[in-house]
């Protein structure tokens, strides 16, 4: 295979990590909404935790994106 083509395929494959980030972020916000609708008074106190969870879930996916960028431009 042409090495250039392999590089692009590899970068595309590395972006698969973002699937997990998508699932994770959706899960966190979905669970937060479900919890917030059941007990709205407790929702604001958990907002910071929500964002932390969001950030942590997103980070794992972004590592994959970073690998893709390193492959493409590194």
């Amino acid at each position, binding site marked *: 295979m042409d090495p250039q083509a392999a590089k692009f395929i590899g970068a595309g494959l590395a972006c698969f990590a973002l699937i997990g980030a998508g699932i994770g972020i959706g899960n966190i916000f979905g669970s937060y909404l479900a919890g917030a609708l059941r007990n709205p008074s407790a929702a604001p106190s958990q907002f*910071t935790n929500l*964002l*932390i969870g*969001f*950030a942590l879930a*997103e*980070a794992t996916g*972004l*590592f994959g*994106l*970073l690998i893709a*960028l390193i492959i493409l*431009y590194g």
Partner: protein
Amino acid sequence: MAVEGAGHHGPMEQFEITKIVDLDLFGHDISFTNSSLMMVVALGLIVVFMIFAMRRRLLVPSRIQSVAELSYEFIAGMVKQNIGPEGMKFFPWVFTIFVFILVLNIFGLIPGNFAVTSHIIVTFALAIMVWLVATFVGFWKHGAGYLKLFAPEGVPIWLMPIIIPIELTSYLIRPISHSVRLFANIMAGHTMLEVFAGFAVLLPWWGKIAPTGFMVAFTGLELLVAFLQAFIFTVLTCIYLNDAVNMHH
């Protein structure tokens, strides 16, 4: 920007660093670049805004004064909630980090401006500073006892050989995840805007409407991301400091 000379500019060209003033320090290139210029401008604006907003300290704040007060209380609340009253020692530093990143993020969204936080070296420098300060504070406050952070209480002893390397890795990887999150969010957002700007330029007139509308909506979302990422960076700074000051509470 992709707007000039359609098709000849890639979406990554907006991140190019250009030298404004050539400087050389013992063989190291420390030129004043467009990135440095944006940082200086942002810093100057923050300082001027804060001094101007607080120049007349009214009991009933004027509009501009309440902006300064709100941002102060926002971060002060975050610091107190995450680290406790002891954490107010770190407040000026945490506040500076927040405002600096927020202003740089929002500045980068103005078309034609250079997005400083889209370069990993900038965010990594900030993140490694946070990590070094947190580690230093931890060892300074707890001495060698700070190493207990890697061996959580209540974990059965036979699990320790697995837990300690995991905790150690997650601690050492903190500056990387901390910086990559900010950098990747800003960079991905700007690349996306540029790609859709390219569509808007290249397509015939009937195709321009959808990408232009998408860009307007996406710029709004990017504004949210700019704030959210500055906020998350600051919250994580507080959490790392909390680990150092209070050790798992």
